[in-house]
């Protein structure tokens, strides 16, 4: 095993007594004070997460849009400058290579933000399919990525700039904002189900931006706290956002993961996986991602088998105790022909069956 990598904020995490773990080859804090408290704090105030492990790939060239049309299931033709789009990337059989964010600077220049553990795989997948005249660069090492999430995020970040951030809409971005002397890119995006921003800073200046956010929050009576990967995982589960490796993988299509909104069958361009996905949609899904809430005491976890009566019908892809709801929730792949919302199913936990109800996703939705 190679040495795990350190993000530009590694020293900050140690100072803040973060519990460091090796997460897919990166040393990152799983928690600082406790995951449940960090989740609740994010929902009430604001938290800062180091997500510098995410990968960034720059795609440039006159035909960059046509190239992206080919590799994305979503329609980048609908993207305008300074806007962000979420899209799966598929194999020809419809299985998922990755799910990514696409930032459009202009029609010829895009930044793809990819899952950390998929960065190399994605880079190779894309470069093997690259059209002439398009250049691709892996900029992952140049960027640190901070996620500022929670209802107070706007008030916190606004302390660092005169640019009016309140006007920045969801899934829009500002390519250049000066923050703590660093030229950063700021988008109104996140992975928690809360309002928030993601801040791409030059790696050498990341610590200064990190510090300045806490200083500015503190002098304005805003309770910004650091939060770790554990809280991030629970926050995204409560918001029913998929995580690659769990809800999405080579063997799972975006349709099965409930991402049909991000698969554009109406776009003109052909895209990798289109035929397989269209066939799957026509034939009907054999498994579909659904929400489960445990009706008894216990914790739903990844890998647990789900039964309807005596029949095994599916499995849990992510599960946890969800502090915002005060109960255990899970995402599970279940057959839509047999299972409907409102059904009470059984989850097998240590050879015993526990009652769980199929509920509408997401488990948590913020009030606007």
């Amino acid at each position, binding site marked *: 095993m190679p040495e795990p990598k350190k993000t530009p904020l590694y020293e900050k995490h140690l100072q803040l007594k973060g519990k460091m773990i090796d997460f897919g080859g990166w040393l990152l804090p*799983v*928690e600082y004070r*406790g*995951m*449940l408290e960090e989740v609740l704090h994010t929902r009430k105030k604001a938290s800062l997460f180091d997500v510098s492990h995410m990968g960034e790939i720059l795609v440039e060239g006159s035909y960059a849009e046509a190239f992206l049309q080919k590799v994305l299931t979503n329609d980048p033709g609908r993207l305008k400058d300074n806007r962000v789009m979420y899209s799966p990337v598929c194999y020809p059989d419809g299985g998922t290579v990755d799910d990514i964010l696409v930032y459009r600077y202009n029609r010829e220049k895009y930044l793809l933000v990819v899952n950390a553990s998929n960065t190399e795989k994605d880079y190779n997948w894309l470069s093997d399919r690259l059209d002439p005249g398009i250049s691709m660069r892996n900029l992952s090492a140049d960027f640190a990525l901070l996620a500022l999430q929670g209802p107070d995020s706007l008030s916190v970040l606004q302390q660092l700039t005169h640019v009016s951030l309140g006007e920045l809409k969801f899934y829009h971005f500002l390519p250049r904002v000066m923050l703590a002397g660093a030229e950063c890119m700021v988008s109104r995006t996140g992975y928690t189900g809360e309002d928030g921003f993601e801040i791409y800073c030059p790696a050498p200046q990341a610590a200064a931006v990190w510090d300045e956010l806490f200083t500015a929050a503190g002098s304005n009576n805003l309770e910004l706290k650091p939060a770790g990967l*554990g809280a991030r995982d*629970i926050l995204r589960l409560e918001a029913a956002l998929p995580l690659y490796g769990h809800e999405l993988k080579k063997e799972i299509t975006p349709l099965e993961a409930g991402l049909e909104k991000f698969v554009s069958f109406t776009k003109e361009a052909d895209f990798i996986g289109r035929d397989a996905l269209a066939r799957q949609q026509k034939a009907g899904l054999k498994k579909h991602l659904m929400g489960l809430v445990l009706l008894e*005491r*216990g*914790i739903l*976890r990844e890998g647990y088998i789900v039964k309807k009566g005596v029949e095994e019908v599916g499995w849990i892809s992510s599960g*946890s*105790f969800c502090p915002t709801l005060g109960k255990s929730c899970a995402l599970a792949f279940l057959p839509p022909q047999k299972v409907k919302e409102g059904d009470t199913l059984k989850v097998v936990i*240590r050879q015993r069956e526990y009652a769980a109800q199929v509920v509408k996703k997401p488990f948590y939705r913020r009030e606007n």
Partner: protein
Amino acid sequence: MDWNFPDDLKYTERHEWAKMTDQDGEKAVLIGITDYAQDQLSEIVFVELPELGREVKPGDNLAVIESVKAVSDVFSPLNGSVLEVNETLFDTPELLNEDPYGEGWIVRIAITDETEYAALMSASDYHAFVRQAEEEV
């Protein structure tokens, strides 16, 4: 790290503690998890307890503890039978984090052989054991 390992308790390599109690001449042992164990598990959110009267041998499963992070087993360090379980843990499993040697006790078992209890680790031995385990990480 400064975990608390009271001197009047016995300890196991699986991070349980045991404490001899004498109620009306009846020898019984209280069992829980150590301060180190609760700290490693972090936020505990669910506990599964054994039925009363169950006969246990050393290494038998006594309870299951689930924290946000992980599932972990509590093993019996001794031969005995379950006399009492701490039912308050059903509604307030966080007592295992907050007061592992007090309100967060897990079970009380009746024992037959006191020498088994005497053979468990002392606080200082357990402390050394934990320190070594930490250094290996």
